[in-house]
């Protein structure tokens, strides 16, 4: 038998351990298009329930936007469903080249290359571009896909404390003899919602002749006055050597991603990046629809302006109510409860009050840093946010959480 009993038991044991340590994840089944209100079935088999969705990356409300759906229908008719080929054989249509060029215009870069996902883009970039003579210096809170990407590279690596510029300087000084140095950070950090200090990072990079890589997955489309990303927000457009981003969040939310930056680096990725060479091309429907999304965003800042106002309101409402909220300027607003058990209970009770937000605790975030992460969308109406705020306050009052300090929350017995 191909799957002997001992092996089956081994995997059953691993799964059992995951359950016992409280880390077992269960998917919530959604019977709807993505949006501000969704019908959710959870736990599996229960009756569906309409919830306010506070946990999607649908920041601009484009995932089910009528204009976007219409563009996708047209794309199907225009360029078909699939291409059944990698880019280099017969998987490059006119629209792929067009999207790459529009991305470069939108992000203010020299060139861009498409990938099936931003995870793939991050998995490709460090292995392809860096050899043993290089050092990667990354923020300690970068996304898992960057960590995996760095693991694939032969370059040496080191880290600096989250957004700590003094520490980054020490590390650049320590490694100044390396031929190639690259500073690696997220633009907006997905668990904290804070924006990396890119102006200071660029300044240090210039002083030490280092490259800068930014993953802007949680920023492209809405951070910055024109939504170009965290580099626009920090006024360093044109100074970031490599930007990776996803089409799977604000830009319609289907899937796909890219690396955008210095022409020679993009050219080399096109020749050598393994996820680009050995994986299927981006589907025409996503390619054309992402083009449409960029077109909408370049033509009007209405969606990002609305998101900015709503996110600021939401952040302020939670602070006024007495919650501890991580400071920031993005629509990711983490409500700090520190206490892992309390966080789980809080999320469950929100769910009962028809608000869908997810609790995160170790190992996804550091120990004693458990939180409910909330994400605002331009699709939320004022009533949606008022409803969600009231639910947060009711649950917090029930457990006497408001106005409590970190130490008090950590010591709460749940």
């Amino acid at each position, binding site marked *: 038998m191909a799957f002997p009993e001992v092996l089956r038991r081994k995997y059953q044991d691993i799964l059992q351990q995951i359950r016992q340590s409280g880390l077992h994840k269960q998917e919530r089944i959604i019977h709807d298009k993505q949006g501000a209100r969704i019908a959710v079935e959870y736990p599996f088999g229960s009756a569906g329930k309409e919830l306010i969705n506070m946990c999607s990356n649908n920041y601009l409300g484009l995932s089910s936007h009528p204009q976007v759906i219409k563009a996708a229908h047209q794309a199907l008719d225009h360029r078909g469903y699939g291409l059944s080929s990698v880019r280099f054989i017969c998987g490059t249509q006119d629209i792929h080249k067009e999207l790459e060029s529009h991305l470069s215009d939108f992000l203010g870069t020299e060139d861009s290359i498409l990938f099936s996902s931003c995870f793939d883009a991050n998995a490709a970039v460090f292995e392809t571009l860096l050899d043993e003579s290089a050092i990667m210096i990354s923020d*300690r809170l970068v996304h898992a896909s960057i960590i995996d990407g760095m693991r694939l590279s032969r370059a040496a*690596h*080191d*880290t600096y404390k989250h957004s700590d510029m003094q520490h980054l300087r020490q*590390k650049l000084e*320590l490694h100044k003899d390396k031929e190639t140095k690259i500073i690696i950070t997220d633009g907006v950090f997905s668990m904290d919602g804070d924006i990396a200090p890119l102006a200071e990072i660029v300044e240090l990079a210039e002083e030490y002749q280092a490259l800068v890589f930014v993953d802007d997955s949680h920023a492209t489309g809405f951070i910055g006055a024109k939504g170009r990303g965290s580099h626009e927000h920090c006024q360093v457009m044109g100074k970031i050597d490599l930007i990776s981003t996803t089409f799977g969040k604000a830009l319609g939310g289907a899937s796909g991603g890219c690396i955008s930056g210095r022409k020679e680096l993009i050219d080399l990725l096109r020749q050598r990046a393994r996820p680009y060479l050995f994986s299927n091309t981006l589907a025409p429907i996503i390619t054309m629809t992402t083009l449409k999304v960029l077109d909408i965003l370049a033509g009007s800042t209405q969606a990002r302006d609305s998101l900015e106002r709503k996110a600021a309101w939401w952040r302020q409402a939670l602070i006024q109510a007495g919650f501890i909220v991580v400071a920031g300027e993005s629509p990711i607003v983490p409500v700090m409860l520190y206490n892992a058990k309390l966080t789980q209970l809080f999320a469950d009770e929100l769910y009962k009050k028809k608000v869908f937000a997810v609790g995160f605790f170790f190992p996804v975030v*550091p*120990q004693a*840093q458990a939180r409910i992460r909330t994400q605002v969308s331009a699709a939320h109406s004022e009533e949606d946010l008022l409803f969600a705020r009231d639910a947060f306050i009711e649950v917090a009052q029930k457990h006497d959480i408001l106005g409590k300090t970190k130490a008090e929350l950590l010591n709460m017995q749940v």
Partner: protein
Amino acid sequence: MEEKLLDFIRDEFLEDPELEIDADTRLISAGIIDSFSLVSLQSYIEREFGKRIPAPRITAESFDTVRQMVQIIQQF
């Protein structure tokens, strides 16, 4: 050596000033030191104590606490 290591780790890795660590605190398995940050520990040991610990010896099992680190450093 123990104190020097603890001081370095507090300075280099602790983001949360309220967290207290001693020679038996689990560091790697508890996520205080992540695997990518081990190089900076390795290069500190080399600079401070003049000993280069080979990377394969620096694992979550054998290098998890300062007490274990001291034992391994003394073998070199």
